[in-house]
Every structure is written in C-alpha cells, then in structure tokens.
C-alpha cells in the first residue's frame, strides 16, 4: 500500500517536471524567459569572470613557466654554440695566418726553383737582452748547416750561426753583430745593412754619389755568397748624408716583424751570385 503511494508520487513529480521543462522550453523559445535569465545571471557574471581570469592566469603562468624554461635551455644551448663557434673562428684565423705565411713561402719557392727551403718553427728567443737570436726546431738532421740564410714570407730573417741535430740558433738581421751585403732596388746602390741594438737596421757604406730616398726598397745583393740575391730586407725610412765622409747611411725598417716570428724557412741551397760578372771589371783594371 505504502509502496503504491510512493510510486504514484514519483510518477507525479516526474510528470510535473517534464511538463515544467516543456513549459520552460516553450516560454524560452517565445522569449518570455529572457528577463528572468538576465536577472539571474547578472550577479554571476563578475564571479564567473574572476574565476575564468584566475584559471586562465594560472594556466598562462604554467605555460609561461614552461616556455621560460624552454627559452632558458635554448639560450644556454645558443651560448654553447656561440662559444664553440668563437673557438672555431679563432682556430680558423690561426690557420688562415699560417696559410698566408706558408703560401708566401710556397710562392717564394716557386719563384726561386734553384733554392731548397726547410720550414721551421721558432721555439725560443735569446735569453740575453743584448743579443737578437732565435732558436728554431730544425737542425743538421734536416740538412741545416751554419751559414744558411733564413727567410720568412715577408723577407730576410737572418742567418744560422749554430746548428745541432734537432735545433738551430739564428742570428737575426737586426742583431748588432749582423752585417748583410745589400743593394737598393731603385738605384742599384750597394752597401751593408747592419743590425742595431734598438732593434732597427742601418744601411752603411752607400757611396755619396748615389741618390737614396725614403721608401727605397733594400734587397740582399748576394755579394759574398752568404745570401741569395734579391731577398727583401726592408725599406729606407731616413737618410744621413755627411759632407766630410765618403759614404752615406740610411735607416732601414725591416719588412719582417722580428718580435712576432713563429714560422721561418731556412734556405739550404741556392745559386750564389756568379763571380764571373766581375770579370769585365777586373779585366778593365788590369794594365
């Protein structure tokens, strides 16, 4: 009995709600419920907005954090790449420098097929402040002998003065004890280039009759047979003429930077100046 009454009530409530729903739908479609809906939803809007914004902010923050971490990782990666590229650039610049120097030496070899060159690294400099010598990592086992000329891609470096099996000592052209027979390229005037303690060079014993001007190129003359002819020594920077003397002197600036030498070439064989070029002079002088 009780169950039947409860079942009836359920059916009644269900039917009433179905009817109410149909009524709401009908009224809603006809537009009657609009003001009621507006009235009910208006106070909900700020709350809804606040909740939506907060949720969005939290979601954005999480996304930003993730993005930030990703960016940070990317920055770190790019920094690593930049550092590695910078390292590579330095390395390539070094290779380029070596290449320029070596290609200069190769050009020199191509222009002078009569000469044999042995390339060497500079491994030390003189321990004394009064001497300008360098030590190179090639010695008698590489065919180097005392007296061999030493050049770089830019010009004359000096001369081997001491050689052991694996190393040689080179007296630089600007050592005070160095003297190289030289000539001026433009006028052909001859003299001797002598090293100076201050690191420069001076061309002495140039006849007073010769015209010497700043900028003149100084080359080895090859006289004496110690150096091949035509190696660039440097350029004249100033000239000293004294009336009372037979000779004039010129300050010479080397084309080689002696303080930053690191690769040089030793000329192990060359054709010295042919002494027969003087035969005409000797014949003329004979009575």
């Amino acid at each position, binding site marked *: 009995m009780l169950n039947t009454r409860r079942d009836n009530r359920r059916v009644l409530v269900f039917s009433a709600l179905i009817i109410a729903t149909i009524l709401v739908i009908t009224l809603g479609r006809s537009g009657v419920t609009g003001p009621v809906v507006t009235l009910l939803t208006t106070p909900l809007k700020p709350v809804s907005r606040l909740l939506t914004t907060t949720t969005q902010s939290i979601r954005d923050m999480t996304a930003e954090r993730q993005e930030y971490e990703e960016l940070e990782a990317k920055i770190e990666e790019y920094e690593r790449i930049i550092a590695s590229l910078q390292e590579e650039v330095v390395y390539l610049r070094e290779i380029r420098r070596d290449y320029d120097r070596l290609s200069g030496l190769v050009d020199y070899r191509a222009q002078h097929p009569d000469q044999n060159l042995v390339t060497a690294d500079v491994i030390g400099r003189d321990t004394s402040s009064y001497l300008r010598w360098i030590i190179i990592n090639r010695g008698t086992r590489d065919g180097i002998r005392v007296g061999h000329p030493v050049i770089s891609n830019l010009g004359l470096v000096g001369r081997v003065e001491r050689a052991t099996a694996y190393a040689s000592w080179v007296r630089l052209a600007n050592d*005070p004890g160095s003297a190289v027979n030289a000539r001026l390229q433009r006028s052909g005037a001859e003299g001797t280039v002598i090293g100076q303690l201050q690191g420069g060079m001076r061309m002495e014993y140039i006849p007073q009759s010769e015209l010497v001007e700043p900028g003149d190129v100084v080359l080895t003359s090859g006289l004496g047979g110690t150096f091949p002819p035509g190696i660039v020594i440097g350029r004249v920077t100033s000239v000293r003429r004294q009336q009372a003397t037979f000779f004039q002197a010129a300050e010479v600036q080397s084309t080689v930077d002696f303080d930053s030498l690191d690769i040089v070439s030793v000329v192990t064989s060359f054709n010295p100046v042919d002494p027969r070029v003087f035969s005409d002079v000797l014949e003329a002088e004979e009575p």
Partner: protein
Amino acid sequence: MSLQLGLPLFLVSAVLQSTVLSQLRVFGGQPDLIPVFVIVWAIFDQGSEGVVWAFFGGLFADLLSGAPLGISSLALMPVAFVISLTDAQLYRHNLLLMLLFAAGGALAYHILYLLALRFIAGQPVVWSEAIWYVTLPSVLFDIVLTAPALSILSRLHDRLHPRQVRL
C-alpha cells in the same frame, strides 16, 4: 740548495726566460730570472752556494742564447762571490737595503756580461746605447722581480738550512 732542486729550477728558469720573459721587452730590457735568483740566493747563503749556482745558472742561460757558453757564468760568479763576502746580517732584514743590494748586483752583472760579450765573443757593443737602452731598463725589471724572489727564496733557504740554536 741541493742539485736535485737547483738544476731543475735553473733549467725551468732558462726555458721561461727564452720563451716568456724574452717577449716582455720594454725598450731593450727584460727581466733576468737566473741572475736575480743567483743574486738573491747569494744574499741569503753566506757560503759558496751562490757562486756554485752562478756557475750552473749561467750555463743554463747560455744554452738558450747566441752568446758563447760560459759568458753568463763568468759575469755572474764574481757578483755572487762579492755578495757572499759581505756580512748579510747587516741588511738581510731590511727589504729596501736588500733591493738596493740586488740592484747593484744586477747592474754589476750586466756590465761584466757586456765586457765579456765585447772582448770574448767579439760582439760589437755601443756602450752608451747598451747601457741606456738595455742595461738600465733590465735592472729596473730585476728590482721588480727581486721582491717576490726574496720572499720565495727566503722561505726555501730557511727550510733547507734551518738555523741552529745552541743551548
């Protein structure tokens, strides 16, 4: 200083002189590591060790030089000998006096070296240029180098030769 310690020390000094210090030229001067070490050791050691190390140090310096072997020893040994004759008690606790003594020693070494270079090696020497352009800047460098050398070698000397107290 024992041979086991001294020989490597001077060998390393010679290599450093040839590779690093030779590129620190100001005017024509450069710091002279071996002469400074020898002079400072001679100040601390009143026996003959200074002269012995002047001999070996000079040889090592000449090994990496164009100068004839033995020239540096010849210039250093008299300096170390004269310093060993002086009574170091008078000045060994006064830094300024020790620096002056080291500067005098370095100057004497340079002049003796130049004389040896001129008259034994036959190297042309323009005296005024050599002294103004190379010797004086080198001596100034040596004075600067002497200060740390005094500190390091004084500790080394005290460790190797502890003072004996008689009770």
